[in-house]
């Protein structure tokens, strides 16, 4: 039983990271109906941004993280204006391919700048092993879970009560009407990209602390896809639930079957969900029959 609890716990930590990435996916999808394949490598970019800021300026972890999030947000909104804006109204496939191209580009640039060597964060998040009732928990994982929980609540409040959040919801609900009411769709899109990039950065830093800073982080971002689909592509609470489900399932699978079963478990769940409920657990049902 203690093994089970420990595995669930690290699954929750992993799931928290997936949730952050999935929230970014959902946000961009809600606003622009684009499935952003570059999210994983935005995460990679964020991790290295934070690494650079922390090693170059020797600032406290929180300040460095904040700076990295800010820079990533600026890059994210730049991506919208430079790359995604010309693609408005183009076929779905082309838009997806552009984000794939972007993903390849980001990864290659990071590789060019930093090389393919593993790196470790200079400022470690405190990571001791806590023992509660015989089960051992890592403090780092606890920190991640709590931080993500706080961030998700903050984001939910922002989305629910702030003016910008209202505008974003309006645009997601009905873009044409929102634009007619004077909302700048362009602004909303770029803000969505900025927030998504910021979230990816937070996720990237956590992921980097869970393992190491290397180019593999971008591929982990791909594993957030099952999380998004399980929750429903346009559902924000769905991202949370999906992230947790996938994280825990992967952790249990890795613990009880074997390490390489990780990817398969997430993607098998994805496939099953697509067969039974293609719109996800909390997504909107759209009926198309041919």
């Amino acid at each position, binding site marked *: 039983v203690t093994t089970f609890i420990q595995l669930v716990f690290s699954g929750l930590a992993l799931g928290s990271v997936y949730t952050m990435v999935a929230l970014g996916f959902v946000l961009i999808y809600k606003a622009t109906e684009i499935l952003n394949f570059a999210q994983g490598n935005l995460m990679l970019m964020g991790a290295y941004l934070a690494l650079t800021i922390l090693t170059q300026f020797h600032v406290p972890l929180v300040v460095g993280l904040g700076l990295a999030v800010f820079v990533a947000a600026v890059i994210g909104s730049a991506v919208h204006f430079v790359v995604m804006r010309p*693609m408005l109204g183009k076929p779905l496939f082309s838009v997806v*391919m*552009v984000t794939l191209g972007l993903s*390849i580009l980001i990864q290659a640039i990071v590789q060019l700048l930093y090389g393919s060597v593993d790196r470790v964060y200079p400022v470690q998040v405190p990571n001791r092993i806590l023992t509660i009732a015989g089960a051992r928990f890592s403090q780092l994982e606890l920190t991640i879970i709590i931080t993500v929980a706080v961030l998700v609540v903050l984001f939910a409040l922002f989305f629910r009560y702030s003016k910008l959040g209202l505008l974003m919801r309006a645009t997601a609900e009905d873009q044409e009407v929102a634009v007619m009411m004077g909302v700048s769709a362009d602004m909303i899109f770029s803000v969505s990209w900025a927030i998504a990039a910021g979230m990816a950065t937070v996720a990237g830093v956590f992921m980097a602390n869970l393992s190491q800073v290397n180019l593999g982080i971008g591929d982990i971002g791909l594993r957030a896809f099952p999380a998004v689909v399980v929750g429903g592509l346009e559902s924000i609470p769905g991202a949370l639930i999906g992230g947790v489900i996938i994280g825990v399932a992967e952790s249990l699978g890795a613990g009880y079957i074997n390490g390489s079963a990780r990817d398969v478990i997430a993607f098998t769940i994805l496939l099953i969900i*697509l067969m039974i409920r293609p719109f996800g657990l909390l997504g909107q049902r759209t009926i198309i029959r041919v």
Partner: protein
Amino acid sequence: MIRALAYQTSYRGDMRLVKTWVMRVWLFVIFAFALVFPISLNDGETQLADGFQVYLACTALVAITGAVALNLLTGYTGQISLGNAAFLAIGALAAHVFGIRFHLPFVVVVPLAMVTGLVVGAVVGLPSLRVRGLYLLLATMALHFIVNYVFLQYQLAAAGVSGLQFPHPNIAGFVLKADRQWYYLFLAAAVGTCLFVKNLTRHAEGRALVAVRDQDVAAMILGVNVARSKVVAFAVSSGIICALGALLAYWQGNVTNENFPLSLAIDYTVMIIIGGLGSVTGAILGALFVTLLPTVIQQFVQGAANTLPALSAFTGAKGAIFNTIVYGLLIILFLILKPAGLAGIWADIKRFFTRWPYSY
């Protein structure tokens, strides 16, 4: 009479495979060149470089076959798929099961791999009746990871980390060994696939696929069995790709699951996007473009580095990364600026000359 464009005056003419005599001549020249290409390279002191050229030509032909087959699914039928690497892996897997485990000869193994592909493709195509667009993309991506896992487990059970081993295939006493010999097999595969797809699109079956892509509801009303068309497209496309996977496995001689990464599937999709969706010519051009691009960029950078030493930083190990950056940029630029791809550019050039000087 001045020929304005290659307009056809009869149905027969419009249905012909090669519509004008100019095209016929060009095709003949290209085909003749493709036939003598490996022979034309001399075996002199530059053996290594020649070997690389033939190797590159083989890769390009493999890419052409795969891209044309994928184009049948994505370009003609409009079913987005990231499953190409998975189907290549299934082909290699089938080749190992039939060829090594059951000791069947090479000439039997490849058709069997194709049949495996047909069956698996039809099964995988079934979800396409239920999910579409982005969801189908995600489903094929899921397939990719699942196949990769299955492949790894089989590989570990059958051969260990070193990978699946394949002998040089023996076709009726003739052993395929050198790249030059493989080249002709791949050439046949590529030409055969192109002809097959081109002919299919002239056939009722193929036109049904295009109708499903453009307007599935309208296609259904016109009597096209949409479900059947989608499954057929999946089955045929993956059948070809699996057979290609089997050939690839024998050619490389040693195959691991890392030979079929997700980036390979992305590469194939990029080929048909850059080339131009829904066109055999486009898929060929795209495949050539993507496979030859790294070499061309490196040649270019090497040349430029001789005059501008600062550029030499982008050769060697950094060169590969530099290639990737150019590759990513090209994908983005093509999609933003030239969505019709290389086939579109080619059509523009032709239009410019046929209509010159009255280009409007």
